[in-house]
């Protein structure tokens, strides 16, 4: 299904989380989470809504601070980083938001150029345009360059959102519910895109989802988050070939849907 | 978590209290102006402060030198006003200066005005009680204006009475302006004078004739001339006649002058008061003069009549009448 690339060291750990705690008031969403992501690996975090899946990747990207625990990304302890170091680290992380989070006031082209322009000094406009066209081509939406986000469909927005992160050529991709709110066909397109990105840009990724199809298609490793803890980690088959009723209820529920 | 929350609350309280203090300070200090200037407090007792309020300004020579600090009653009709005078100015103000209530415009704010003070008196010091001068307030100005108004009304009333009287012919001016008979009399006088002068002319012409005939010998006249006494008498008569005529002339000139001066006096407003001062006596005098003139001209007429009937001249007049008749006859015969 997936071809191994010679330039990737699959043993190297890019994200290493140990004993992570996070609570909002009396709501304890993460209670001692451990997770490792190797280079070139797509890890799918499965779980029901409100179980703190998004919180996990927000902590990884430095948007939220953990109450306790270690979050090591690309060899750097995220909670300890100052503003500038964090920004440097973030240039190597791509974050695809659940609702794409495209800038409404800008066209697709401007949306794509925005992070690149602000993070690269002395960038010629021709180079900028080339980069924009390249990522647009990669997500297959070259024709939308001058459109506003409001004119795009949900699937297109998602693609542009992914393209916007790709333009920075990140080492790690964080997908927050990539297939949420999309029809099955578009979902399949997005799943394929995620795999394509992994192949083409040699990224490691954490994919947050509750969609089993997505998990099955994109995940090299599945982690099941329940009650603030990973109850099961392993391949898709490993995770679901179990008698654990909690996991099965999730499985059944998803397929009935 | 608990500790950081506590810290947030503490800092929040600290900021809140700080802002509250700043706002309160600004609001209270803003109410009393020039709070930071050190001042000297003096007082003055007024009967009436005309609506002066705490915070109103104090002026000295038109310069603002402080504000009214407080106003309090110390008895009936006795208001104590505490004045905060800026310390910088006190050395220019002497302790025996006076205070009065004024305003910085006709409808402006009330102010306390300090004025006067002798240079030898010590400078103003805290606790001094200033003398009060109940000077001109706007109320006083209004009162004075009211009196002025009344006076004006009185004056115009009088003027109205005077002009009414003038119109109705009372007083000398009124009489002069209104008496028709006086005008008529004047007219008559001048008529009579004209008559008299024409008579005089005729007489003198006759006299000329007569004197010319005196040179001819054998005539009565020549005989008469030799009688020097009669001749002298005749001469004096003629001289007197001349005098009368010239006097009459003068009177007429005077009259003309008088009437013209009355005219100018009437048309001239400035002399109106002078004219008003003339009494009825002058009018009476004028009438007397005119009356006299009338009588004098009447007498002149009589004199001339008498001269015609004089026996010395009777013959001459008869001859003249005959000659005239002859001439008339001749004229008829022709």
């Amino acid at each position, binding site marked *: 299904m997936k071809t191994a690339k010679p330039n990737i060291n699959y043993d190297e750990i890019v994200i290493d989380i140990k004993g992570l*705690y996070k*609570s909002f008031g*009396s709501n*304890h969403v993460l*209670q001692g989470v451990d997770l490792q992501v190797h280079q070139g690996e797509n890890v799918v975090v499965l779980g029901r809504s409100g179980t703190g899946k998004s919180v996990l990747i*927000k902590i990884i*990207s*430095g*948007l939220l601070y953990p*109450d*306790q625990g270690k979050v090591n990304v690309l060899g750097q302890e995220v909670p300890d980083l100052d503003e500038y170091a964090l*920004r*440097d680290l*973030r*240039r190597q*992380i791509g*974050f695809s*938001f*659940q*609702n794409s*989070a*495209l*800038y*409404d006031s800008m066209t697709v082209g401007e949306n794509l150029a*925005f*992070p690149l322009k*602000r*993070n690269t000094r002395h960038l010629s406009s021709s180079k900028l345009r080339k980069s924009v066209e390249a990522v647009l081509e990669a997500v297959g939406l070259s024709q939308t360059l001058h459109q506003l986000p409001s004119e795009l469909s949900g699937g297109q927005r998602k693609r542009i*959102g992914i393209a*916007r*992160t790709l333009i*920075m050529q990140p080492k790690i991709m964080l997908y927050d519910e990539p297939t949420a709110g999309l029809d099955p066909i578009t979902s399949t397109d997005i799943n394929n895109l995620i795999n394509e990105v992994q192949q083409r840009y040699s990224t490691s990724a954490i994919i947050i989802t509750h969609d089993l199809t997505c998990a099955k298609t994109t995940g090299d490793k599945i982690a099941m988050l329940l009650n603030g803890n990973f109850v099961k980690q392993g391949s898709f088959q490993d995770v679901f070939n179990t008698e654990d009723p909690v996991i099965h209820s999730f499985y059944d529920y998803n397929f009935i849907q | *978590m*608990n500790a950081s*929350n*506590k810290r*947030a*609350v*503490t*800092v*929040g*309280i600290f*900021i*809140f209290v700080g802002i509250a203090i700043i*706002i309160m300070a*600004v*609001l209270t*200090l*803003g109410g009393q*102006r020039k709070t930071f200037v050190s001042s000297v407090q003096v007082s003055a007792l007024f009967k009436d402060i005309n609506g002066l309020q705490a915070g109103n300004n104090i002026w000295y020579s038109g310069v603002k030198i402080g504000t009214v600090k407080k106003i309090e009653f110390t008895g009936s009709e006795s208001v104590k006003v505490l004045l905060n005078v800026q310390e910088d100015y006190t050395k220019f103000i002497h302790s025996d200066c006076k205070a009065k209530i004024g305003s910085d415009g006709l*409808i402006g704010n009330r102010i306390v005005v300090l004025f006067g003070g002798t240079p030898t008196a010590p400078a103003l010091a805290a606790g001094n009680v200033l003398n009060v001068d109940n000077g001109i307030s706007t109320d006083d100005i209004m009162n004075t204006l009211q009196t002025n108004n009344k006076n004006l009304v009185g004056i115009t009333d009088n003027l109205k009475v005077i002009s009414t009287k003038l119109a109705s012919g009372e007083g000398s001016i009124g009489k002069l302006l209104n008496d028709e008979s006086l005008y008529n009399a004047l007219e008559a006088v001048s008529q009579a004078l004209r008559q008299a002068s024409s008579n005089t002319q005729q007489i003198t012409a006759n006299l000329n004739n007569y004197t010319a005939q005196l040179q001819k010998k054998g005539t009565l006249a020549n005989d008469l001339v030799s009688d020097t006494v009669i001749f002298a008498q005749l001469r004096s008569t003629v001289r007197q006649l001349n005098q009368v005529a010239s006097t009459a002339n003068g009177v007429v000139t005077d009259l003309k002058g008088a009437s013209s001066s009355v005219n100018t006096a009437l048309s001239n407003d400035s002399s109106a008061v002078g004219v008003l001062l003339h009494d009825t006596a002058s009018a009476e005098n004028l009438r007397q003069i005119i009356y006299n003139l009338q009588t004098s001209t009447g007498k002149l007429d009589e004199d001339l009549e008498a001269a015609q009937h004089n026996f010395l001249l009777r013959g001459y007049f008869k001859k003249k009448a005959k000659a005239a008749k002859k001439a008339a006859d001749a004229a008829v015969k022709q």
Partner: protein
Amino acid sequence: MDSTNWQPEKPVISKKIDQFFITIYQVFLFIRKFFREVFRMPFERGEFIRQCYQIGYRSLALITLTGFITGLVFTKQSRPSLAEFGATSWLPSLVSIAIIRALAPLVTALICAGKVGSSIGAELGSMRVTEQIDAMEVSAINPFKFLVVTRVLATTVVVPMLMAYTGFIGMLGSFLDVHLNEATSIQTFFQAAFEKISFLDFGASMLKAIVYGFTIAMVGCYQGWNANQGTQGVGKAANVAVVVSMFFIFIEEIIIVQVINFFR
């Protein structure tokens, strides 16, 4: 740490009062952050100019109408009481003082609070709830600098300009009324009007406008920046931005007037 030994936080005073002071603390942090970021390079010049255009040009029509009507109506309503003294010739100076000292800054600020404050609150609020701000954050862009600093600076610069413009338009409105009633020429009107205006008056109004502009943008940004999830949060942010900034404008008006009185 386990869920079993978790105990509810002990409030310092009470939950609601605590929340009030925590909000003050957060506002303080927000303002401090602004002053830190504002002096940090690079300056987002393009976005600043774009915001100036948005805030200034877009409010111009509303400001023109409001300013003109304010001047006109104020003159109309002041006329009878001045006419009682036969002092309608004082109208230009009276109106100019009222407009320059009080009306122009206040009217401009209230209009801008309604138009600019709400739009900033709604814009940032919607960016917050659709995670656009987070998106900037994770693409290594400083969203505070890009969104908040530019908007606050632009509003602080533009509101004084709008204030001067409102004052001018208000005077024109006043002139129209005076001209129609007393047939005063425009030169005479403005001569009489500016006779009573000192530089302190204008400077004080400028200061007011600067403070109001800063307040409007700060409140709008704070509300939008801290908007809760959901579209309801956007509406609330816009609404609260207007209400709170108007409230602060009046508080500041009192304080600034008092402070200016020290110098008068």
